[in-house]
């Protein structure tokens, strides 16, 4: 079997259409982002921090976004959350949430959605908590900003939310200040605030990067549990392929602001097709098996102004060919459903080499 035309240009394959074919319009994904581009203009030059990122996420599912620092993960998340509109960055592309076009939403409407429909948690919980305000008061304030609630019912809800995220002694914790909590407890508070309104989507930007292994395991387990209980979709941003492996249904690998490979997590990790993804997996020491010499990727990720033309990975890529300097690789579907790669090596369908 070779490539079909539809797979090559990224149309749904016939099998998939048959499944969705019951109701003629396929079920609408919860989050549908098309060609999201975030760019920065300075000194007459423009550089894309995030370039033509498209993603789709169903209700209750988890999408992992993996990339090294500076690859544009946080920028993409902030753009989806509509948090870049007033800044120096230009955002383009279409973002549909539950069918609504976020770009056309009025600011007040968007603000309301941000509290109740989509929520986000950040890498460093200390910087998102008010250091001079008790935990309980902060959650109550957040609750009252979105719903008309009496102080006492808001406090009750806050305690419930803390209990839900597994905080020991929720009532007692409400009286503490952020610096009196451990890093893991602070991240629990952030998660509690994010889920009080039971959002349909939670974007978690490196939620465990600042935490110890054993606490990371607790927080990931908690996110999984909440996602299941609330049927909440999760965008999990991380630089750790291992975290994605244990958590997400699908994964997108970002390099220099571009989605270089995406697909079902297992498929991408077991059968990586992009030289960068392969490089990442080869550079990571294994927890099991022999310790051969590591195969590092040469050089380091380029700064946004130094991104090479053509394929952004080309000056570090061991497989680069001449075309890589001039041609920007487009996504090509692999024979395995939903596995896409943006690399010129995959632009020629394998069937061309086959003699049937």
């Amino acid at each position, binding site marked *: 079997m070779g490539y079909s035309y539809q797979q090559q240009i990224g149309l749904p394959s016939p099998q998939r259409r048959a499944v969705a074919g019951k109701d003629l319009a396929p079920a609408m994904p919860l989050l549908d982002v098309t060609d999201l581009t975030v760019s920065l203009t300075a000194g007459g030059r423009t550089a894309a921090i995030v370039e033509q990122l498209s993603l789709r996420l169903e209700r209750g599912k988890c999408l992992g976004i993996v990339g*090294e*620092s500076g690859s544009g993960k946080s920028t993409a998340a902030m753009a989806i959350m509509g948090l870049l509109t007033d800044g120096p960055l230009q955002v383009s592309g279409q973002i549909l949430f539950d069918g609504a076009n976020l770009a056309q939403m009025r600011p007040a409407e968007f603000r309301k959605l941000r509290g109740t429909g989509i929520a986000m948690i950040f890498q460093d919980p200390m910087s998102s908590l008010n250091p001079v305000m008790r935990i309980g008061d902060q959650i109550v304030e957040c609750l009252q900003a979105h719903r008309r609630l009496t102080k006492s019912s808001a406090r009750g809800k806050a305690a419930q939310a803390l209990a839900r995220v597994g905080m*020991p002694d929720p009532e007692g914790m409400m009286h503490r200040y952020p610096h009196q909590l*451990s*890093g*893991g*407890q602070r991240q629990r508070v952030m998660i509690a605030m994010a889920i009080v309104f039971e959002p349909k989507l939670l974007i978690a930007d490196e939620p465990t990067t600042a935490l*110890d*292994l*054993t*606490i*990371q*395991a*607790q927080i990931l*387990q908690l996110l999984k549990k909440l996602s299941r209980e609330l049927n909440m979709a999760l965008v999990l941003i991380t*630089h*750790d*392929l*291992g*975290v994605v*492996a*244990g958590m997400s249904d699908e994964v997108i690998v970002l390099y220099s602001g571009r989605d270089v490979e995406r697909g079902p997590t*297992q498929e991408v*990790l*077991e059968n990586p097709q992009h030289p960068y993804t392969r*490089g*990442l*997996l*080869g*550079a*990571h*020491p*294994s*927890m*099991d098996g022999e*310790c051969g*010499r*590591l*195969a*590092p*990727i040469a050089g*380091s*990720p380029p700064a946004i102004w130094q991104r090479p033309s053509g394929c952004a990975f080309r000056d*570090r890529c061991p497989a680069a060919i001449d075309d890589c300097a001039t041609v920007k690789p487009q996504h090509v579907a692999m024979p395995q459903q939903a596995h896409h790669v943006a690399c010129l090596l995959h632009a020629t369908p394998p069937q061309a080499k086959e003699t049937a």
Partner: protein
Amino acid sequence: MSQSSHPALEIRDLSVEFRASANRGLFEKPATFKALSGISLDIRQGEVMGLIGESGSGKTTLGKAIVGLTETSTGSICIKGQHVDPARAAGRRALARLVQMVFQDPYASLHPRKIIGQTLSEPFTIQGTASRADLRSRVRSLLQRVGLSPEHAARYPQHFSGGQRQRIAIARAIANEPPVIIADEPVSALDVSVQAQILNLLEDLRKEQNMAMLFISHDLSVVRHLCQRIAVMYLGRIVEIGAAKEMTAAPAHPYTTALLSAAPRVKARNRVQAAPIVLSGDVPSHAAIPSGCPFHTRCWLYEQKGCPARCRTEMPRLETLPGGRQAACFFPEEAATPARSPAAACV
């Protein structure tokens, strides 16, 4: 006894106390807490010893105590059989010849106003190990040893990426070829693709120079890759020491088992088959170390065994097990085999 029969680094019963920052009355004795208790550790020449443990467990404190940046309250440190005493001012320069430390943050550890050539000349001029005439060529060859080019000597730190800065920090540490290197999370701030370059460099240097290294990290896969042996720390104590491959295959302390289980794995077939062990709660503070075994408040094996009173009342010592492994647990042979079903919680 000849010098070479000594381990490169010998630590005996080392303790470090810090003053607790809690408020106290004017005339009260300042409260202290033990950041390190009774640490004993040997590292042989040409050996990399990994040191892992959660944040605050005392890894950096141990490293700093060895290089004389932190005062110790009890215990002794010998390097190549030579007793070192950083408290004596005269001993400082001599100590710098014996042991050097590489820090985690490659951005903070280099002087921003000094060109790299200047930074790398200092170890030679301070120790008087290179003549003025030789200095340039020594710096050049040092840069080449860590995979940089001699032209880099004229640049300032801000022109370098994180990985390159870490190479420079390593170059500075190995300039006078000290027998012992302390590397405190040297790759934690680096991207995965760059981290592997530095790990390979450290591996090469160890082989070339036959130095001993204490490699501090919280990444188990990195430690397992680079180190021959691993020491696991919990609340200022070493709870297990053993050969890297054996320990990661079958731990002898339930805390090690939990760390292994929490380590994210990329390949599905390598992920822990049963449910991972997720420890409950946080690491207790040093100011309130639990009675008996300090780990009993989070120990899954304690629960699995029906909460034996001994774990609450008696402190397990680091004992040597058959095969040379050391562990501080009353039930080391059961640490590698968590039961499938969760045990009842102990109150």
